[in-house]
């Protein structure tokens, strides 16, 4: 299992377009990928393959998000998801 904390670099945060792209990107990997808000008192978890849960994460521009990948391709998954999220 690999985990990394990043800062959302998309100007409008993880909104419709960015969220849709993230979900499409995540389905390219076999690993389970989970995001959670590192800066929130109420750490909600979001499945990166579920657009509804990604939207409900409500991650605005500049918010801190932890990405956790678990599976055979966790390194590549983490790398490419983090690269996308930081913009």
């Amino acid at each position, binding site marked *: 299992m690999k985990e990394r904390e990043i800062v959302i670099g998309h100007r*409008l945060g993880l909104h419709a377009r960015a969220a849709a792209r993230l979900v*499409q990107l995540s389905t390219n990997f076999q690993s389970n990928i989970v995001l959670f808000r590192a800066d929130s008192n109420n750490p909600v978890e979001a499945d990166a393959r579920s657009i*509804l849960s990604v939207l409900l994460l409500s991650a605005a521009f500049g918010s801190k998000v932890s990405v956790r990948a678990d599976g055979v391709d966790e390194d590549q998954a983490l790398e490419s998801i983090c690269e996308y999220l930081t*913009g």
Partner: protein
Amino acid sequence: MKESERFIHGVVASVGAAIGRALRSFDPLFVSFNSKVRPDQVRKEVERFRGSVEKSREQLKRMQSQLKRKTGPESSFLIDAHLLVLQDRLFADRIIDKIENEQINSEWAIQQVSEDLFQAYDRLNDDYLRERRGDLEDIVRRLLHNLQSNPLPSFKKLPYDAILIGKVVPPSMLFELRSQRVVGLATETGSPLSHTAIMARSLEIPAVVGAPELADVSSGDMLIVDGDRALVIVFPSDETLNEYKNRKHDEKISKKKGGAVTSAPSVTEDRVRISLGANINFSEEVRAAITIGCESIGLYRTEFDFFREGKQPDEESLVADYSIVLKSAKGAPVTFRTIDVGIDQKSWDGVNMNLGVRGLRFCLENTDVFKKQLRSLYRASVFGPMRILLPFVSTVDDLDAAHQILAEVRQELDLKHLAYDPGVPIGVMIETPAAAQTCDLMASRVDFFCLGTNDLIQYYLVVDRSDRSVVHLYNPFHPAILRCLHQVYTLLHPTGKPVTVCGEMAADPPSAAVLLGLGFTSLSVNLAAYPRIKRMIRSVSYAQLRDLAGQILKMQKPREVEEKVRATVYRP
């Protein structure tokens, strides 16, 4: 008895005007029959649900490919989000779980699962994201329809032009009904950021949103949606109807003459090139502007990012913002206007901000804020061509003070060895009467000018645009305005400094034609008005408009001017 005319105010989502009868979009959401399913029927019920998902997916795919063909890739991403919801674990799998475990029918399961999700959306602390609730509603509506054996209601036999109204109108409904005599849209809730609004703009359907008083309007009521004035007129009088019918007729002629515009060059009938840029408020719009063929971002209003969420961003995130804008512009030059506070707003103590500390005045009093923004702009300048525009300048002294600060900022960057383009052009807005009268005195101190007609008209005619009791006096065809613009042109033309007109006067075809006639060959308009202005440009003769300007400068009344201009621009 004929009902009397009534005006409902809302927010503009898409420009243009439409006349038609109200068609209330009924909400089939949750008007479904809930029932238990016999244990031996559960598998069949799951299949029924899967069938409806499959059918919905096919419909959406078809819609997406039509949308791509019709409007380009810009709005087809809206459908991506819907397709992803259909295959979402949180959604479809949970519904199937419910059907299986609670032995209930699909409708009931959909209702329960989506109700949970709606509540989660409503708790979000973010306007933009709360709007996304609409996407989910849209999908749920589609699934429920597809579960019924009877197909989606057909509006094919609509006997009249219809204006869709409702608390919300889902984007897919607008798209599906576009060819069936739906000519306009007005909703009680929603914002210009909603997907329905984006869809309306892509389809060039006039739309007003956020007008709660629409709740009293019923299907069949006569309506006019005016997306230029943020207005819905209920039971319009014959006089009003005629006025709008003439406008529609005029626009039709212009549409026919201008043809398809996205890739067409912005040149007049007599081959004079007119530079046409876009006015932008948020970086997301930049990509859309480039997609529809904009060659420059003529005005990027920076105050929206700057005061986003009520707090000021730090320098690093500003640099990031501005470089994203420049990268998305793909080499098209971007004119960043430094923060202008107080536009169209009264300050907390009721003082009219329009006559107070605005634009550059604010920046010169808050040099820390101003310097931070200028440093960020300069640092981003390595990512693409940019220009810096100073708003609300009224004296040459202000301009000298601004130049002093600009020089200090460049010095700081040199000391820190930070890369920037030292040749970024610096310009000023002409939007105060003082600047209009003295722009020639400013010319040696700047590289370019932008003409902000909204404020200029407001100050010249002493009309506060936010005051409903005088707003009808706001008129770009007033001889005072024509003379002022003519004077600005005459003062600036010999200096050779470029001038772009970026106020709303440039966004309405007849008044934009006046600007061309007065000699201004560079305009910048909001995205929604972009197609119609390009169409106007392509359908007029520059030489003829120059002649026309000579005539209208001698006229006495705004009304005469407007009629004369319309007759020329919209000649059949």
